[in-house]
């Protein structure tokens, strides 16, 4: 079985986890830039992080036969500090042309604040100018519906951005139909407590169909599971879904979205 995990934070995981991915057939991953669990002190930390994503992780992954791609961006949680945010936005362009960078991500909203929106708009503008792919982080829990709607409104108002070059991630039952209706790709995240389970992800496939959906683990430094995609594939198998459909969901779909960036090799 071949699987692509389009959203996994391998820099927060152990090298043993790379081995687990390889043994499970996950030979391609993409890692969005995100919040490390603490606020960084200055722009130098972001230089280090973007070098980690574009140099260290691809090399660490390659030891296990895994292709590692990444996304560069300023996460919404650290966008609240306006001065730092402006310094970080100024350095982002110098990383976007590196060979494994697929686009801007994960950018989006966290608590739906004015400063978060400002940083998001600035990065969407950069992506539109460069015609880069966009990976969107939507807020957690009670803020998700509102944040997803604000984000979609901003993107839809920029006619330079084609919705099928945007993946709106961490979708759940109350946001999927609106995201799909606007022509975006959507991501379902398998996160034990705060997002979805394998059972609910398979329910979503049964309800909304198999097009424009990417399923990811978002495994990171918190309670999460790098093998969550495999467990969801197994849940499909347990219900009797055909292997062809499983292959489409976990391999062909992420490949189709990510291949819109010419640097991506599935």
């Amino acid at each position: 079985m071949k699987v692509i995990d389009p959203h996994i934070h391998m820099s927060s995981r152990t090298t043993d986890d790379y081995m687990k991915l390889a043994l499970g057939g996950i030979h391609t991953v993409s890692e969005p830039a995100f919040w490390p669990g603490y606020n960084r002190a200055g722009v130098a930390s972001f230089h280090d992080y973007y070098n980690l994503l574009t140099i260290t992780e691809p090399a660490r992954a390659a030891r296990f036969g895994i292709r590692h791609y990444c996304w560069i961006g300023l996460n919404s949680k650290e966008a609240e500090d306006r001065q730092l945010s402006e310094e970080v936005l100024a350095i982002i362009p110098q990383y976007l042309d590196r060979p494994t960078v697929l686009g801007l991500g994960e950018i989006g909203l966290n608590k739906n604040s004015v400063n978060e929106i400002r940083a998001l708009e600035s990065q969407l503008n950069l992506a539109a100018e460069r015609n880069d792919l966009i990976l969107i982080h939507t807020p957690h829990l009670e803020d998700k519906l509102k944040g997803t709607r604000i984000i979609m409104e901003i993107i839809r108002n920029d006619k330079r951005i084609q919705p099928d070059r945007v993946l709106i991630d961490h979708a759940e039952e109350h946001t999927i139909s609106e995201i799909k209706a606007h022509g975006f790709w959507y991501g379902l995240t398998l996160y034990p407590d705060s997002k979805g389970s394998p059972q609910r992800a398979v329910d979503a496939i049964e309800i909304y169909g198999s097009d424009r959906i990417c399923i990811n683990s978002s495994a990171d430094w918190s309670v999460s599971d790098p093998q969550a995609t495999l467990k969801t594939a197994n849940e499909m198998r347990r219900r009797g879904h055909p292997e062809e459909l499983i292959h489409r969901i976990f391999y062909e779909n992420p490949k189709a979205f990510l291949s819109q960036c010419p640097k991506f090799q599935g």
Partner: protein
Amino acid sequence: MAPERCPKSAQASLELYFLENRARLLEIAAFLDRIDRCDGAADARADFRYNTFIKALHLLFESGPQRTKAIQLSFSDPTLEPIASAEGLRAHGAWEGGLK
């Protein structure tokens, strides 16, 4: 695009998922019992999260075939106005305004 039919019959789904969901139901009952039993139960029962939770339990019966979506919406902030600052704020899993 067309939905993907669940290959299992409803009876087979009941068979497959009954025990794990029976266990989840007991976890919820035990969670509510624990709140009742512990010191300060009245304060906890006045908390907006407790009340949104109870409201969501009612939705299990009242919201028809789209229970999951209805419960998700009941926990969500449906407004569209950005907030002035996110400084020091976190997500709670429930929206206080939903109780009004």
